């Protein structure tokens, strides 16, 4: 049986089209690069100043001058390019990145995203997330549907500090796929064995349920 993270990142990877420029956030989103469909080549952009990021290197072959945004030692694909942070963020803010995949603490029904700070816990900082959510053509959220303690993450209104407003396009969880259309959250697919009713019960946000809901194949 697949774990929740694998379900989520396998489904996220289906969104990648051949030639897409994709920026993957630290943590779970990074794993989506392991499940890109055969025949699809994506260009992984790292805000650290690289496009054409390859897989992590085998231990012993680390190059200290080649790391991804989470600090892992990686390889460069043929055609890779290096640049400084100002050009990297010109790509990001300027609409040159097709898809960004980001983890979330909360997403609300207005498409607002909270992802970088849990009040009262150790501070992390937003890194490049605020630039990515305003600039990428599509913002895909990869997150478990509920918190580890069973609390809602799909909210009426985010209660944690926001990363961006009205910025989310697609939400992929272990239960379902949700899409924002004209500022409203629509249920697109349910994981096999999960009913729309179960999704609604696991969400505080208002969700539109169309007559036909697809099956989430992973």
């Amino acid at each position, binding site marked *: 049986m697949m774990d929740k993270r694998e379900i989520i990142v396998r489904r996220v990877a289906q969104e990648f089209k051949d030639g897409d420029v994709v920026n993957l956030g630290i943590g779970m989103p990074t794993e989506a690069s392991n499940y890109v469909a055969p025949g699809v080549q994506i260009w992984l952009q790292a805000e650290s100043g690289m496009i054409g990021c390859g897989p992590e290197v085998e231990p012993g072959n680390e190059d200290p001058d080649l790391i991804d945004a989470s600090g892992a030692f990686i390889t460069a694909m043929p055609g890779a390019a290096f640049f400084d942070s100002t050009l990297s963020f010109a790509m990001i803010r300027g609409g040159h990145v097709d898809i960004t995949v980001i983890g979330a603490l909360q997403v609300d029904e207005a498409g607002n995203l909270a992802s970088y700070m849990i009040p009262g816990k150790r501070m992390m900082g*937003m890194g490049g*997330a605020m630039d990515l959510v305003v*600039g990428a053509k599509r913002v895909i959220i990869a997150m478990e549907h509920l918190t580890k303690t069973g609390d809602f993450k799909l909210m009426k209104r985010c209660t944690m500090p926001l990363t961006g407003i009205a910025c989310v396009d697609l939400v992929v969880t272990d239960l379902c796929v949700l899409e924002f259309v004209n500022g409203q959250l629509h249920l697109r697919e349910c994981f096999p064995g999960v009913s729309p009713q179960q999704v609604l019960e696991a969400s505080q946000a208002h969700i539109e349920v169309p007559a036909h809901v697809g099956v989430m194949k992973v």
Partner: protein
Amino acid sequence: MDKRITFTQAAQAVNDGSSLMVSGFLDAGHPQNLIRALREKNVRDITLISLDAGNERCEVYYFIQDGHVGHMIVSHIGRCPAASDRVIDGSMTLEFSPQGTLCERIRAGGAGLGGFLTPSGIGTEVEKGKQIIEVAGKPYILETTLRADVAFIRAQKADRYGNLYFRGNTRNFNVAIATAADYVVAEVLEYSDEPLPGESVHIPGLFVDAIAVVEDK
């Protein structure tokens, strides 16, 4: 003119209360030897401007942990728990700036601009206390620029003119930072009297005041 100095000499440029820009995305392009020399000098109350707070592979991680920093302007400190702890215990203050905004504030500071407009952070805590300006119906935050007394950067190669060449994805904040401080020191792994090919110069020597060559690589 020979721009070479020792790491100890470089550390003399930073004093209690100085503002200091430090390059690096975690350890990639991070001036480990310059910060190590500065840790030995034991300065206090530094205003540190950097992309992140480093991880356990970075000298800046220990520079923060040991309490040399009074104020920090940064985009991410997730790999340096001591940075958060120091803010919570009151021994350091901190301003978060989104990463793209932070490097543009430095770039603008080095490029003679008065500020710039960005959509990053609209509707978030980042916009608090800042002017919002609408252009063609879209709101932007007016962000101000950053400069520092001293910048510490790190390149692969330097020539006698201070021209710098970078390997892999180590350029990150190095390029912007090199333009935005009164005194810029580059730590380099290789030094050559012969000039670098002009096409391979990522930072022209006019931005580089001094070079410290890493002997023990």
